[in-house]
């Protein structure tokens, strides 16, 4: 085991090896399955590992290659899928007891695209129940730990997908991002995650949390691998009326473009939001690096984003309260036996976890007679104001920069008793969802925090920090281009730490 282990390689490198015939898809998939067996007890990223299906698909890909056929853009690459995305024939739990045994009878559009492009789906990853949370602690079905520090959360809600990529259990993963659920865990685990523009990627087959905010997004070790997934999952889908029918560029190709001359704005409001010292220092260093790359950086202001979190915590629960009404025990999922219909509803819906119940209550209230105007409608209007702010900023700037999260990964249990403190983890990521904008989190450094062992010698833990790059609607290209340029500058340092962490994870004890 070492730096050259297959599981420590990025998707792009694995693809080259497979294309060159130096390694088979079966070997690649086996390497990751072995890695999963090895580290999963410490990470807990997966709710289900699809060993047999994965190996069968890998063998199919190998056969295609042997017979000289093109196995697709992702031919043979293992991909993990967040457990709120339907894979036909596999359980799709959304991290909930409500769907603990529900087998999806159809493929999500993104899953179909993955399969068509030769991806090997090797598992479903853990998540906060119905994607409601920022730590994956709201999963009813398992605990996921941050590979960088097992006492800490991996972030959420796509914590399983991010942790799996960080731990070297899979090179590529899909998450979903409603208020930061791809970017925040990517930042907490030192990997790269993109929330695409609303409408860029089909939501068909994604268990809905808040329909006007949800987007599926890729998580991978670097920007190049994120592009690889984006090339496969982007584009119009006739099954999703909110997906946009407009040309999709080849994202992998835009990486050769120069980022020099781009204009970047730094909203001053983003640094006053309880941002920790370590995060701020990393962010400031990142700005220096970007300037060295020839990106012009200027402070700007988005005055309305101070209202973004409030706005989000009205709109998202309101939509969720309606989206989660279908979990009534009638047609699928869990049903509690009862003598009357009403009793069956109530007893079935008691299986929602506390955070889900809280948000259903909040959202139901915000839509209820007498409060709709004051809460839901007002929030929808504030959303307009927030979007106007971004629109104005993008008249001047090509991209906007901020830390992805105010802090690095917090401790397990640290925020579970105080919903508001948990909500704060999303403070820098929700604006992009409200405005429907593409936003990337890319590793930009580390914050050293005391490890705080029980009576043991005090050492420092390195926890990753994410840089968030937000772009204009449907301009993922510029965001990815800037992110790639930036990451090239820090890759050596970041990846050295990553490899070191991964090795440590594999060691017994």
């Amino acid at each position, binding site marked *: 085991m070492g730096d050259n282990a297959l599981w420590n390689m990025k998707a792009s490198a694995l693809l080259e090896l497979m294309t060159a015939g130096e390694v088979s898809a079966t070997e690649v998939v086996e390497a990751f399955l072995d890695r999963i067996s090895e580290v999963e007890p410490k990470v807990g990223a997966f709710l289900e590992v699809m060993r047999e299906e994965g190996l069968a698909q890998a063998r199919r890909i190998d056969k295609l290659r042997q017979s000289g056929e093109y196995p697709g853009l992702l031919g043979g690459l293992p991909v993990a899928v967040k457990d709120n995305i339907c894979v036909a024939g596999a359980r799709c739990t959304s991290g909930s007891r409500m769907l603990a045994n529900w087998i999806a009878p159809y493929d999500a559009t993104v899953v179909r695209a993955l399969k068509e492009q030769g991806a090997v789906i090797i598992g479903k990853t853990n998540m906060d129940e119905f994607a409601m949370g920022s730590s994956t602690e709201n999963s009813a079905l398992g605990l996921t730990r941050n590979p960088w520090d097992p006492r800490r959360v991996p972030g959420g809600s796509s914590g399983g997908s991010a942790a799996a990529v960080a731990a070297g259990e899979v090179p590529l993963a899909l998450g979903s991002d409603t208020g930061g659920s791809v970017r925040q865990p990517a930042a907490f685990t030192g990997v790269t995650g993109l929330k695409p523009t609303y409408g860029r990627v089909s939501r068909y087959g994604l268990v809905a949390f808040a329909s006007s905010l949800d987007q599926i997004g890729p998580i991978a070790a670097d920007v190049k691998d994120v592009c690889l997934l984006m090339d496969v999952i982007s584009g119009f889908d006739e099954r999703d009326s909110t997906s946009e029918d407009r040309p999709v560029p080849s994202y992998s190709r835009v990486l050769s473009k120069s980022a020099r001359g781009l204009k970047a704005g730094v909203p001053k409001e983003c640094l006053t939001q309880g941002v920790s010292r370590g995060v701020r220092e990393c962010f400031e260093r990142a700005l220096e690096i970007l300037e060295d790359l020839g990106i012009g950086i200027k402070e700007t202001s988005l005055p309305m984003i101070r209202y973004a979190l409030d706005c989000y915590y009205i709109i998202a629960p309101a939509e969720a309260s309606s989206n989660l009404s279908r979990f009534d025990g009638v047609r*699928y999922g869990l049903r509690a036996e009862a003598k009357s219909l009403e009793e069956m509803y109530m007893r079935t819906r008691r299986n929602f976890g506390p955070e889900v119940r809280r948000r259903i209550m909040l959202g139901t209230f915000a839509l209820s007679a007498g409060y709709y105007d004051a809460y839901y409608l007002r929030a929808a209007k504030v959303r307009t104001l927030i979007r106007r702010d971004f629109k104005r900023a993008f008249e001047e700037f090509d991209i906007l920069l901020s830390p992805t999260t105010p802090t690095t990964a917090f401790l397990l249990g640290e925020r579970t008793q105080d919903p508001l403190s948990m909500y704060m983890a999303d403070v820098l990521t929700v604006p992009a969802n409200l405005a429907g904008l593409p936003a990337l989190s890319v590793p930009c450094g580390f914050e050293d925090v005391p490890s705080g062992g029980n009576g043991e010698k005090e050492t420092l833990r390195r926890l990753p920090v994410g840089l968030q790059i937000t772009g204009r609607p449907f301009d993922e290209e510029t965001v990815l281009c800037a992110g790639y340029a930036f990451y090239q500058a820090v890759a050596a340092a970041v990846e050295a730490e990553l490899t070191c962490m991964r090795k440590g994870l594999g060691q017994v004890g």
Partner: protein
Amino acid sequence: MPLKAGAGSGGKHTPKIDVKHVARLAMLKLEDGEAEKMQRELQSILEHMEELFSLDVKGVEPSFGSFDGAELRLFPDEVRAGLCRNEFLRGVPAVRDSYVMVPRTGQEQGSPRKNNEIEGEWRARDGR
């Protein structure tokens, strides 16, 4: 950002939530004690949103989606195969003769659309 973790300030805009009523609407059952806790939590979340009310939103168009000027796309009226019946019924908690079975409502005439229902005796087909 107006939200700060901690106790609410008891703002003037925040109404007292009738959690029992809201729970009924949401078809959630709150056990004793749970209602008070829920009340406290929701109240504190709403109180932290007070600052929203200081914004003047008069004349502002609401955004219900994520971008401006989006228009609905319409699709041709062509029948396509859906789920086969077995595929669907396999996942249903209780099935009888290809129907989905649920306990009858305790408030029998409570349907807002009762005229869409077939009233009448249903007899199980005798399999023997």
